[in-house]
């Protein structure tokens, strides 16, 4: 009976706060599926046996239809699918709205690996270490084709698209190691594009973080360096361009009349396509950094700008606002 153990229970393990909610809907739909499939098969078999043709020229009584019956099998399925729809939509909204205090992790998909950056500076490939019980929001993008970051044990996934940010969040609630996969076909080694989420206790997580060679420089600190080396400081630190202090999450008035929220996607767009995202009241002189800056570096700059938020950021990272001249916060 060893083979039975391979798939009973066959579910991917439940290891996130939302997994039981998703599985409840799964079980409801499975109950509906089993009930109606069984009903149909049984009716078919019973009728096929009971009303089998007894003589070659048999002609049965003709029944043309029955409106009340038609209405019954229109209305009952309609009610059942309405329940599934509402239930599914509620989950969908829950899964689309990360908690405000979620810690951001930055993930770049590329043919054929996942590059992961932690705000503290740790970088990893095809592994994601996270603390248990804390909400994590992954900011996903891709350097080339469309990928998809999927963690079955957490019941979540989201496409990682080139030129765009998407997010997926979860709170892992069991310590352990859970596989993640690329779920969107992305070329030759699509099936190699997988790894593990290592869910750890806070203390072991911190030990792990400290042991990472890349942990010395946090993402905001890395961003602050880029702020200098890319020359952003020449305008954004002098008043020629808008200051980055307090920019995060604020409303930005664009020259074309649009008002946008300064989130990661806005910052990325502005760096790569400054003409289209030109801010009102400033000269339209910023050059594009398309082709000169990597997705990872943009993430560093976003983390830096986030650290300059005037209100304590959602992560509660207390970074002292630097002087107007943009002095580096690098330790």
């Amino acid at each position, binding site marked *: 009976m060893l083979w039975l153990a391979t798939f009973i229970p066959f579910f*991917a393990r439940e290891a996130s706060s939302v997994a039981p909610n998703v599985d409840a809907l*799964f079980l409801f739909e499975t109950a509906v599926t089993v009930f109606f499939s069984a009903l149909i098969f049984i009716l078919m078999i019973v009728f096929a046996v009971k009303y089998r043709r007894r003589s070659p020229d*048999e*002609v049965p009584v003709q029944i043309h239809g029955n409106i009340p019956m038609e209405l019954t099998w229109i209305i009952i399925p309609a009610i059942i699918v309405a329940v599934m729809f509402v239930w599914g939509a509620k989950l969908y909204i829950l899964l689309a709205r990360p908690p405000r205090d979620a810690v951001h992790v930055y993930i770049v998909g590329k043919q054929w690996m996942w590059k992961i950056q932690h705000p503290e500076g740790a970088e990893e490939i095809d592994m994601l270490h996270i603390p248990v019980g804390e909400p994590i929001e992954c900011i996903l993008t891709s350097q080339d084709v469309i990928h998809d970051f999927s963690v079955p044990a957490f019941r979540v996934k*989201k496409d990682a698209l080139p030129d765009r940010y998407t997010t997926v969040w979860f709170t892992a609630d069991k310590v352990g190691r859970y596989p993640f996969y690329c779920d969107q076909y992305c070329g030759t080694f699509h099936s190699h594009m997988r790894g593990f989420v290592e869910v750890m206790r806070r203390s072991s997580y911190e030990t792990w973080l400290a042991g990472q060679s890349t942990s010395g420089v946090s993402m905001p600190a890395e961003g602050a360096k880029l702020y200098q080396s890319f020359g952003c400081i020449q305008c954004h630190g002098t008043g020629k361009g808008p200051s980055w202090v307090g920019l995060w999450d604020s409303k930005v008035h664009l020259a074309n009349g649009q008002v946008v929220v300064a989130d990661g996607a806005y910052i990325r767009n502005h760096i790569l396509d400054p003409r289209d995202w030109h801010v009102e009241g400033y000269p339209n002189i910023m050059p594009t950094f398309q082709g000169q800056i990597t997705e990872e570096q943009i993430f560093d700059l976003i983390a830096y700008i986030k650290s300059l938020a005037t209100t304590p950021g959602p992560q509660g990272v207390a970074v002292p606002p630097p002087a107007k001249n943009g002095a580096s916060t690098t330790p």
Partner: protein
Amino acid sequence: MGTGNSIALSKPGEEYRVHYLNAKYGIKSWLLTTDHKRIAWLYFISTSFFFVIGGLAATFMRLNLVSPQGALVQPATYNKLFTMHGTIMIFFFLAPAVPTVLGNFLIPMMIGARDVAFPKLNLLSWYIFITAGATFLWCAISGGVATGWTFYTPLSSTYTNTHVISAAMAVFISGFSSILTGLNFIVTIHKMRAPGMTWFRLPLFIWALYATSIIFILAMPVIAITMALLVVERIFHVGIFDPALGGDPVLFQHLFWFFGHPEVYILILPSLGVISELIAAFSRRRVFGYEFVAFSSFAIAFISFLVWGHHMFVSGQSIYAGIFFSAMTMAVAIPSAVKVFNWIATLYKGSVALDAPMLYALGFIGLFTIGGLTGLYLASTGLDIFLHDTYFVVAHFHYIMVGGAIMGYMGGLHYWWPKMTGKRYPEHWARVAALIIFIGFNLTFGPQFILGVEGMPRRYATYPPKFQFLNIMSSAGASILAVGYLLPAIYLLWSIKYGPAAGPNPWGAKGLEWTTASPPPVHNFDVIPIVTEEAYAYGHEPAVVGSAAS
């Protein structure tokens, strides 16, 4: 219709009769024919050929998946195999099979016409189809394409170095074949019906093909345009889909699935029509709730254009769009349920004969029910996030495509084979084959539902060892399924030469196609029939609409 000028050709004891198969001989008489019945055979041979190629690709895939590292081929080859399997099965087998083989043969016969409205256009459709098929084969021979049948950008437009252009051109060309077929069918059904054949006397197969034809005309231009844009971007680097060129990567998915979901109904609607015919014939009953079954085809066709976003629940599209598409997708369940329950009600107090076509029909109803219900998991937005792009999806659509569409096609083929060839096949072998297909099918695709909830992603050439057991089960099932498909290939071909004569109406079924000889004369009917009764007028009791099932 000449008679008796070549008596020597007839077998002793059989009266010689001129019909569409023996009226003319020679390859030219086939390749230049405008007879809808012969064109149906042209399609039968060519789509069967593609079914074999697509099936071989699937065979290699299943063999490869026996081992977690890939038992047979490198990932690059595996990716080409599943692309070939998907593209061939969808564009060159499933989409054309029922409409162009059974539809071509039966539409004029069922409505009491001598041919389709535009016989030459009908032949042209086949030549376009063959051109498209040859283009795809050329793509395969020159190295193949590895984008999946969905051709997602920017993988297809920029990153892959496989043969996207020829594959996209093949799909582009095949679209025109379907558009012309759809146009031909719509005009035929409107203008060529025999006197007395009113809309509500039409067999439900005709209603289903009419709905399918509408989708052909509305959806196929969209895929043709999308493929053309893809080719333009790939050759001239015009930024349409690749963000690196200034395009939008998700735009492709919107265009593709605006065609792609209606396409799913192109594949299944004709088979739904076939099943109505089979259920009526083998329970000797008018299909219960005829009008509801007829209009449910149109409801499905209409809603199918409003559900495309359910393929993009995890693509980052607006959650409100997601919720809208979820609601629309859920709505498709209702007309589908209407069909299933009406078929079941048709069996009630019927005169049920379990001949081979009926076995396929009953198998269809069961598997279509499972396929449809598992589709609801994927229509439920929050649950789809879990299952999207896993083997659960693969299992679900194979229940619809293989358990549904192909079962329906096989059932229809067995039902009308005596009409098409004038011969009967060995009934017991046919029943055995139907049973083997049913068992093999469930063993192949049942385990894939479990693989999906365990988290195995689709389109994986290699996989973690924990998925191996179920993959082996699935591959073992596939070998049974292959035997199931091989049997009909043997006994149907055998029957053409050695089968006993079928006679005009071997099943004792109603319908104009059964009133003429088998095989039918060149012009179908010696005298155009005048229709005085509704479809499936079994028995002589007056019709009592709305009476309770007593």
